[in-house]
């Protein structure tokens, strides 16, 4: 029991103000890395292919305008320890996740559009795309890290443009509350949002209507 107390005191000294491994002085790298495809378990069912948007040949877009329009670019959420279900719970302590270059992150993510069947083409013949990063937030909840990323795109349509927002969510097990894990969780959210955008671009290229 005494050993437990000593360990607890030591951990408190080391960790209380630092929120474990999250660095509140170093910004995230903001390097987009597409998540590795989930490895199928030996007895996992085949992923149904029917739900995927069919790819359209020659779906070319140009990234005419890319912008980071988040209201706050200094932080990307953080570790705030709070127990939501308890009436008197308050955020006793926490640490911010510091933001880096949001434009680099967004551009990196959009460069993965070809993996979803959308070619990036600088020619005037390509459909001009306007994409803005509206929200990027990461937080911890229970044993997991979560992220929410919102992209807003002006989709080129035959009769003009359609503005649509794509919400991406990331969730992963929180091992050590490390900066790299927050970045990974944000990348999961970004991947999810880009995938939604790419699916709609396939519809645009096929001349189909895009849902509101």
């Amino acid at each position, binding site marked *: 029991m005494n050993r437990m107390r000593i360990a607890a005191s030591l951990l408190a000294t080391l960790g209380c103000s630092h929120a474990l491994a999250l660095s509140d002085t170093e910004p995230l790298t903001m390097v987009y890395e597409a998540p590795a495809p989930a490895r199928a378990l030996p007895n996992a069912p085949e992923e149904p292919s029917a739900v995927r948007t069919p790819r359209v040949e020659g779906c070319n877009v140009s990234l005419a305008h890319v912008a980071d329009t988040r209201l706050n670019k200094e932080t990307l959420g953080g570790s705030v320890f709070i127990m939501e279900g308890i009436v008197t719970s308050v955020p006793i302590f926490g640490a911010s996740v510091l933001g880096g270059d949001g434009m680099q992150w967004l551009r990196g993510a959009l460069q993965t559009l070809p993996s979803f069947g959308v070619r990036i083409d600088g020619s005037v013949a390509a459909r001009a795309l306007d994409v803005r990063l509206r929200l990027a937030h990461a937080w911890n909840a229970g044993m997991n890290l979560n992220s929410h990323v919102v992209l807003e795109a002006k989709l080129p349509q035959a009769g003009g443009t359609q503005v649509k927002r794509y919400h991406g*969510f990331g969730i992963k097990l929180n091992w050590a509350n490390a900066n790299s894990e927050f970045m990974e969780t944000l990348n999961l959210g970004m991947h999810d949002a880009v995938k939604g955008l790419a699916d709609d671009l396939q519809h645009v290229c096929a001349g189909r209507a895009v849902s509101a």
Partner: protein
Amino acid sequence: MVPPREREIISMHARWAAALRAGSIAVASLWLAACAPLHYKALGPQDRERVRQLEVQVVVPQETFVFSATAPGVSAALGGGLIPALIDGAVQKSRQEAMRGDISATIDRVIDLDYRAEAREAMVPALAGFPLNVTSHSVTPRIMSKADLDMRIAATKDGKAFLRLLTHYSLEPKSMTLTTRTHAMLWQDGNPAPSYLGSIISQGRALSAALDGPGALREQMRQATTDTIRLLALDLNSPQHAPGQKPKASVPILFNGTVIQWAAEQVSAEDGQTVVRDNGGALISVRTKVN
């Protein structure tokens, strides 16, 4: 069909992962147990007397409402342990993923809401009658680093004091009720131990029918800031309160659309809002009745 060697590798990885998770959970449990700080400490009359200039910093670290699915509570029901904790984590993840449609729709409607701007807008008039002499105030998204906070505390000399309000907003997904939770800490005399600690919880009316844009929510966020500053002033004016000395009777309070019994005493009831102070010293401001 997975080759036997590959299956063996996957199995080995799973065992390592389980061991690592066990270690992480043990560390986290110890850490949380050791970090349980005081939630409440009254500002003594002498300490209050020495506050000549007060800097107020409101920290709003959120960019969006955090909708966190609740864990099933397997760990609590079974008295803790690795396997129940992992079950909780996995079920929570599954529930979180199931909520994405609702979250997207809700956040989409309030995407233009600037949390800090709303807090700033309401804070200035709310601080007008504050019991301490506020000489500067700010609203920021960034929680100060340990080093910066230490430096800031060290500078609280000669009657200067620093009050930090760490604020968290949450929207209850079913009733769409906004809850604003604030932890207040006041430092003075360069002392790393705060002179005052306060917990303030303010909950507004349910918004379910009204959330067709940021307007209603914006109004509630401003009201929550006003309410929080009012309760903070009340707390700083109550040096006689000593939590835990006598158990209070249970009073019914309306929380997240449900009436619950809470060990607390009523402080005030006006304009459809009830304020109670619970046994631990937290001030809770809730609606008197459902909308």
